């Protein structure tokens, strides 16, 4: 009975989506707002990458909303996870093998440079704060994976991470308030347009990209380290007498077979 209801639901959803697909003229959009933005963005904002111009220039407040949603999710995950630590001695992962440790040592400076490059050049080439921030988070987390250390945190200082994240978020809002005080509109791009196509163009857009990138990078790195610090389960690799892997697989089969 449950299967029949599920299939009916899927069939109804498919019908709805197919009707939408046939009505909407895919391949020839109306471009009501997009056309105007494509025409005006190079002169008004001065950025070559129009997507970043819209993200940070025209719709900066939506980006502020996204940053606050990420902040709420990371804080909530941190609150949920903190109860698991410290109760008993956590069995953490062993240090990574030779390939992982060497690879992490080689990759860390490269990832750092690539991440910072993508953040800073967000208004010129495809990229921006979010992409570069994710690469920065991966750069710092690879080190934690390679050498977890005695308590699983791999030497990552949660206080410093929180400090960087808070400072970057406050910097974003401070830039917006400065625009509000100076020009009367919150988060309006300031400092003129500069020379089109160079690094120092598009006003405050590189500064906003930097704030977004640092905030997202610090947040995600801290979140993943908190996940990695959770005490390992009893049936994990560090257990000297591991349970037979057959009945774990049987449970999974039994639980997921319909």
């Amino acid at each position, binding site marked *: 009975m449950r299967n029949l209801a599920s299939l009916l639901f899927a069939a109804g959803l498919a019908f709805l989506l197919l009707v939408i697909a046939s009505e909407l003229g895919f391949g020839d959009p109306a471009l009501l707002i997009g056309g105007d933005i494509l025409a005006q963005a190079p002169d008004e904002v001065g950025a070559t990458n129009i997507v*970043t111009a819209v993200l940070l220039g025209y719709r900066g407040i939506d980006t502020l909303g996204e940053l606050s949603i990420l902040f709420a999710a990371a804080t909530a995950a941190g609150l949920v996870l903190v109860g698991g630590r410290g109760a008993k001695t956590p069995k953490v992962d062993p240090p990574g093998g030779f390939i992982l440790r060497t690879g992490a040592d080689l990759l860390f400076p490269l990832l750092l440079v690539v991440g910072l490059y993508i953040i800073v050049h967000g208004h010129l080439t495809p990229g921006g704060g979010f992409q570069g921030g994710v690469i920065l988070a991966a750069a710092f987390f690879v080190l934690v994976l390679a050498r977890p250390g005695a308590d699983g945190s791999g030497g990552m200082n949660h206080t410093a991470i929180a400090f960087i994240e808070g400072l970057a978020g406050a910097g974003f809002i401070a830039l917006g308030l400065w625009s509000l005080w100076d020009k009367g509109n919150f988060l309006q791009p300031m400092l003129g347009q500069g020379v089109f196509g160079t690094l120092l163009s598009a006003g405050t857009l590189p500064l906003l990209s930097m704030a977004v990138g640092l905030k997202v990078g610090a947040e995600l790195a801290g979140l*993943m380290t908190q996940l990695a610090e959770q005490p390992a389960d009893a049936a994990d690799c560090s257990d*000297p007498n591991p349970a037979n892997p057959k009945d774990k697989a049987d449970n999974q089969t039994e639980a997921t077979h319909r």
Partner: protein
Amino acid sequence: MQADLVTWIALLVVIVVLVSAVLVLTLENLIGAVAVSGVVSLGVAVLFVLLHAPDVAMTEAAVGAGLSGVVLALGLRRLGLWRLESSPEVTEHDLSARPSASVRGEDRNA
């Protein structure tokens, strides 16, 4: 069926993506399901490139295939639903038998 090269490449990627999406739901091994969800994200990132959206493709590749897979795999480790291949007994036995076993799993001399 006259269609240009881009459409054929898109058709190939779409077939890989749809098969992987079905595999996500039917694989019993959960860590395999997490790996296949990374394949779905990578395929969708290639489709974004074909749709002339490079920003979105970069974000989807970095976030979907990288960060999301790592977060899900870390959760699986802590749930105990995925164990490393070498438990301590196996490593010691293999160390005496084969010299190349020390690079697998735990590095005892580190």
